[in-house]
């Protein structure tokens, strides 16, 4: 791996009375595609700016490859940034934008040409070298920004919501390209985003942040399947969250008396003794929906309810189910078997919902509401 590892520890930063970061510590490995994910105002961009050297933290240190870089200005750190607004120099051509860092170092002309063309070909923009940034589309500008940030051969590339100004389709394509560029250059990427889909699809690991704290760090799978708190569960994808009291416990399986739903069997890893108040998260795609009862099975939760709203979206239908106790359940049904004569489920139909205890997770409840 060519990249560097980045360690931040105990970083806090306030702007006036606003605490942007409250003692954040993270360790990012060499060559990793690491995402900082959270709602706007959660401190992710501030953290990135601290790593880049644009902001001095009030407390804490930033280490790159074990070396404390806290006091160094941005031009002395081996990180480069791709800005949300692209920040291309409007008075320079695409070529000169990418060449800017080399010109500063007075690299000989021939080498400049070679390196710039190499990096422009990495982002497939060789044909646009002579254009001014104002003549480029949003996606092209973004690519110039990436090529320019990579030309110094940094050890760490910092990306500040680089795709947020692009439309949805282009965003998908750029994401795939970014991933390919990451594989090719092999350096550490730190990627700031508020879009959980982006973070899930490209990251090696994700740190979910909110209100200046890191709530959970883990692989996309860990974050999605085992959210540490109900904030994380709600922020990453759609989820059903219920609160209730543990009424009995048998090994890893606990029975929770959930408000508005009744008794649920859930898997609890260690936490949740009898009598404890817990939050339970169930992903909507893990719940099966059918007109007939699936039949008893140990560790299977079976609930009955009424379809209040079927929302058809092509590849799947989202059902909002009202339970007799007053609870509401969201269920996704994929249409893989649609043509095989699965009976259609309509509005006001009585349905059975079933999910395994293994597919539910006890999460820490916090007062936070995702934006």
């Amino acid at each position: 791996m060519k990249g560097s590892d980045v360690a931040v520890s105990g970083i806090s930063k306030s702007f006036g009375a606003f605490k942007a970061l409250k003692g954040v510590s993270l360790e990012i490995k060499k060559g990793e595609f690491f995402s900082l994910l959270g709602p706007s105002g959660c401190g992710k961009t501030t953290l990135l700016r601290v790593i880049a050297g644009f902001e001095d933290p009030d407390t804490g240190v930033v280490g790159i490859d074990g070396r404390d870089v806290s006091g160094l200005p941005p031009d002395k750190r081996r990180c480069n940034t791709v800005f949300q607004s692209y920040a291309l120099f409007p008075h320079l051509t695409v070529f000169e934008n990418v060449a800017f860092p080399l010109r500063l170092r007075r690299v000989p002309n021939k080498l400049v040409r070679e390196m710039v063309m190499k990096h422009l070909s990495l982002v497939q923009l060789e044909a646009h070298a002579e254009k001014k940034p104002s003549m480029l589309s949003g996606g092209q500008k973004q690519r110039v920004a990436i090529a320019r940030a990579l030309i110094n051969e940094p050890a760490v590339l910092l990306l500040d919501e680089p795709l947020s100004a692009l439309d949805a389709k282009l965003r998908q394509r750029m994401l795939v390209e970014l991933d390919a560029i990451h594989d090719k250059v092999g350096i550490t990427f730190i990627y700031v985003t508020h879009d959980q889909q982006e973070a899930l699809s490209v990251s090696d690991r994700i740190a979910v942040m909110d209100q200046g704290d890191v709530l959970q760090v883990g692989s996309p799978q860990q974050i999605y399947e085992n959210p540490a708190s109900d904030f994380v569960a709600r922020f990453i994808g759609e989820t059903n969250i219920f609160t209730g009291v543990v009424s009995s416990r048998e090994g890893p399986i606990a029975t929770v008396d959930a408000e508005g739903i009744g008794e649920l069997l859930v898997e609890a890893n260690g936490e949740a003794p009898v009598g404890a108040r817990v939050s339970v998260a169930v992903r909507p795609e893990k719940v099966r929906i059918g007109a007939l009862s699936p039949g008893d099975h140990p560790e299977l939760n079976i609930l009955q309810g009424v379809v209040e709203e079927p929302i058809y979206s092509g590849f799947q239908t989202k059902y909002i189910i009202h339970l007799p106790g007053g609870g509401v359940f969201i269920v996704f049904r994929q249409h893989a078997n649609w043509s095989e004569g699965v009976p259609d489920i309509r509005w006001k139909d009585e349905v059975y919902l079933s999910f395994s205890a293994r597919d539910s997770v006890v999460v820490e409840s916090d007062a936070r509401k995702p934006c």
Partner: protein
Amino acid sequence: MKRNYGSLYAAPQSIWLTLFFAAPLLIIIAYSFMKRDIYGGVVPQFSLDAYEAIANPTLLTVAWRTLWVSAIATLLTILIALPCGYSIARSGNQALRLFLIIVPFWTNFLVRIYAWIAILGNEGFINDALRALGLTTQSLRFLYNQGSVILVLVYMYLPYAILPLFSTIDKFDFTLLEAARDLGATRMQALRKVLLPNIKGGLVTAVLFTFIPIFGAYAVPLLVGGKDSYMLGNIIADQVTKTRNWPLASSLSMGVTVMTGIAAILFALRGRRPAQRAPEETGLGPIAAASGMPSGGQA
């Protein structure tokens, strides 16, 4: 029926320009080619006397001095106005700071010059203070030399430079400076290579707004200048009011107009050249040709 009212809408401006710009200019051009009347005024008879009279060593010395003083004063004004405009653009209370820049305009031009005399004069504040502190016994002569003329000119025209610089810097995207720093530029390099080229328009305006009026300055050198700081404006005024040689005053005015015009055009052109030369500098031409790359620059 559809009618074109364009010339009607433009009428106020056209009339204004004709009355107050074109007509006086034409009168001056006409006078400069006439003969001087013995009691002042002009004799309507074609003559090049007034232009021949310019080629007089004293006048040329003054012309050269005017150019030099104007250049120095403009340079100093811009050097002060740049950081001022920058800090106003980046400050939180732009309105208050702009207001403070404009406040001096509420006072009459001449009153402000006299204020400087009150500050710098032999019995002025500075000399009084120096004497009171016992640092000097005699008055120091601050006034009536080129230095005092330049100082007061810079003071007078500073707002004219700050305002256009502020308005362009205000539109500048400061993320670009961060990007430059991020890419390895020092603070000064970022300002020089990214800020300056992007506020060129404001710089050109500021230079023209200060250089042109300073070049024609009359009151400042008259009131705070000495023998060594007589400028073209003073000579022209003398020709009009004292010597009453109107053709010479007119030909000198033409000289000032032509010189500032040439300076303005040269300056505006100079600002544009680097952009046109960029493709050669990158040396991309041959590469582009070799790889069969479509190049917009060659079209």
